[in-house]
């Protein structure tokens, strides 16, 4: 199975029945696959007139009650940003799959890169939370896409699956868990009187309001303006503050359960490699070679990159005397590692941003004791 195809399978198994998108390399297989698979399931696929429209249609479909997905790549991801922010603000569950290619601008459409790490975090304007998952195998692409839909529904927020061209086009054997092991989450529904329904009233501990579908009997107003419990605009400082804090807190509160990662040989190590996405495959090869050479190296592969898994990274790295962060950009996630680690620990970047997959040798060269 191919990585892009696995994303579709994961999303469909999580209950996605709506896709809107616009063709862009290297993500087009996701659209093509949804186009073939949704109608037989009674679902809807639509190819919109542009990237912005497809993001808008996904949010519209979400509010009408469907689990909805779009996919894109760098330039399209830039175009979608405003409405990703809208989805965050109105709390419309949705999933955006970004198969990264080398940028800036049109860049290298068919080459791998991880240059959108910061755009996935801060691409839309304003202060906002972000939930971003990064697969480093085809199995991951399936599992994280499934997870992304679940978390979008549970937290009522856009979730980004950040692939790269390598993972998107990678074909490998996958082992998927049985369907019965996969638990599906759906947005909460209200139970009270529709006449007194307040769409953003918080009664639950998780700080997340229920979301009824259009046509379900609950009528309400939704706006990208700051709004109170009634859903109507307000510019009162206490309302603004309360909403923005809640948008962050509803995710922060469950942060520990959101940190997905793999780790290898952390305990018997004095050096650490941190990586994610396609780079993590090279990192794993580098880690193996280093071990063969007798070096005490650990490996941490991050699957959740936003919110940044601070606790996981500090725990893995606090006792190391060299940390290497391998990524296919000029150094994006390394800034977060530097922010959270003790300043006395040297942190080095193994970077490559020329459209070619980073090699294990490049990563090895940053470790101490490699001749």
């Amino acid at each position, binding site marked *: 199975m191919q990585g892009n195809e696995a994303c579709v399978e994961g999303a469909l198994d999580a209950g996605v029945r*709506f896709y*809107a998108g616009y063709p862009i390399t290297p993500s087009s297989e996701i659209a093509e696959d949804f186009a073939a698979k949704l*109608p*037989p399931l*009674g679902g*809807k696929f*639509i190819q*919109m*007139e*542009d990237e*912005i*429209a*497809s993001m*808008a*249609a*996904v*949010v*519209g*479909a*979400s*509010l*009408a*009650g*469907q689990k*909805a997905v779009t996919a894109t790549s760098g330039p399209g991801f830039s175009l979608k940003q*405003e*409405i990703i922010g*809208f989805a965050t603000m109105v709390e419309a569950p949705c999933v955006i799959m970004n198969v990264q290619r080398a940028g800036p601008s049109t860049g290298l459409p068919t080459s791998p890169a991880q240059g959108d790490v910061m755009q996935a975090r801060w691409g839309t304007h304003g202060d906002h939370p972000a939930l971003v998952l990064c697969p480093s195998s085809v199995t991951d692409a399936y599992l994280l896409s499934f997870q992304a839909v679940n978390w979008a529904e549970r937290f009522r927020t856009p979730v980004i699956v950040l692939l790269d061209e390598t993972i998107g086009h990678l074909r490998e054997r996958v082992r998927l868990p049985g369907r019965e092991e996969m638990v599906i989450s759906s947005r909460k529904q209200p139970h009270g009187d529709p006449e007194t329904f307040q769409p953003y009233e918080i009664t639950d501990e998780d700080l997340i309001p229920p979301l009824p*579908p*259009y*046509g*379900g*009997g609950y*009528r*309400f*107003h*939704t*706006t*990208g*303006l700051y709004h109170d419990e009634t859903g*109507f*605009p307000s510019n009162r400082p206490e309302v603004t503050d309360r909403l923005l804090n809640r948008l962050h807190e509803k995710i922060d509160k469950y942060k520990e359960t959101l940190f997905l990662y793999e780790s290898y040989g952390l305990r018997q190590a004095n050096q650490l490699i941190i990586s994610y996405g396609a780079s993590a495959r090279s990192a794993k090869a580098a880690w193996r070679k280093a071990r063969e050479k007798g070096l005490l190296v650990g490996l941490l592969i991050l699957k959740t990159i936003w919110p940044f898994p601070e606790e996981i990274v500090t725990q893995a790295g606090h006792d190391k005397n060299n940390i290497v962060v391998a990524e296919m950009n000029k150094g994006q996630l390394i800034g977060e590692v530097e922010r959270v680690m003790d300043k006395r620990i040297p942190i080095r970047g193994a970077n490559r941003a020329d459209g070619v997959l980073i090699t294990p040798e490049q990563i090895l060269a940053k470790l101490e004791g490699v001749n």
Partner: protein
Amino acid sequence: MELEKYFRVEKLPHIWCPGCGHGSVMMSIAKGVDKLGWDPKKVVVVSGIGCSSRAAGYLNFNTLHTVHGRPIAFATGVKLANPELHVIVITGDGDGAAIGGNHLIHACRRNIGINVVLFNNQIYGMTSGQYSPMTPEGSMATTSPFGNIEPPFDLCELTKSAGANFVARGTVYHLPKLDSYMEKAFSKKGFSYLEAISQCPTYYGRRNKLKTPLEMLEWQKENSIDIKKAKDLDPEELKGKIITGIFTERDEEEYTVRYDKLIASVQGGKK
């Protein structure tokens, strides 16, 4: 009053300036829904950004106030996700003709069951008076301080050519006619485009020798020409005029109906 149930009266007074025409168009929408007897729970009003788009907040349906220029794209998602819903888009001349123009023509082309009502006050009111793609040539605006040299877009001709099932233009001055177009637009199964010429005394009238709302309404009256009469006039005579009436009425199959047939045939083929 019978129509009161369609409004969130507790949200009034509205934000529009004294003499603004938008309230009249909003009322016409409520009358249209009433005439069709739609269940308010099944009505979704989607709007963009601008003065007109604030109407969504006062209407007691499912209302979605989106981002600038994209309400038709959001509405496409809503309608396709649940074709049973009656989806109305409220937009303006900036929201619909400038930033949102692309979505408008593609929704026409698909002939998806969305009723677009474009409040055309010929100016960007919310941002205090810049010229829009529908501002008449020669008009003064904050961004055309020496007079507007761009010709206005005729979205009725555009939407008609792009495949809409129903296209009409009315004015706030000729309200009963606007109401009748609204009813016809809402009764169409496919895409409908209804343009309502509205007035902005604050940001258009004051700068263009139409000092009072009344003068603006008189301007609408004096410059409107019925489409049947317009057919006999040459382009020079029609310059600067408002052509009102029904531009097209068709019954091409609606998009979500076609989609459901596609699903049925794909699923049928499997059995």
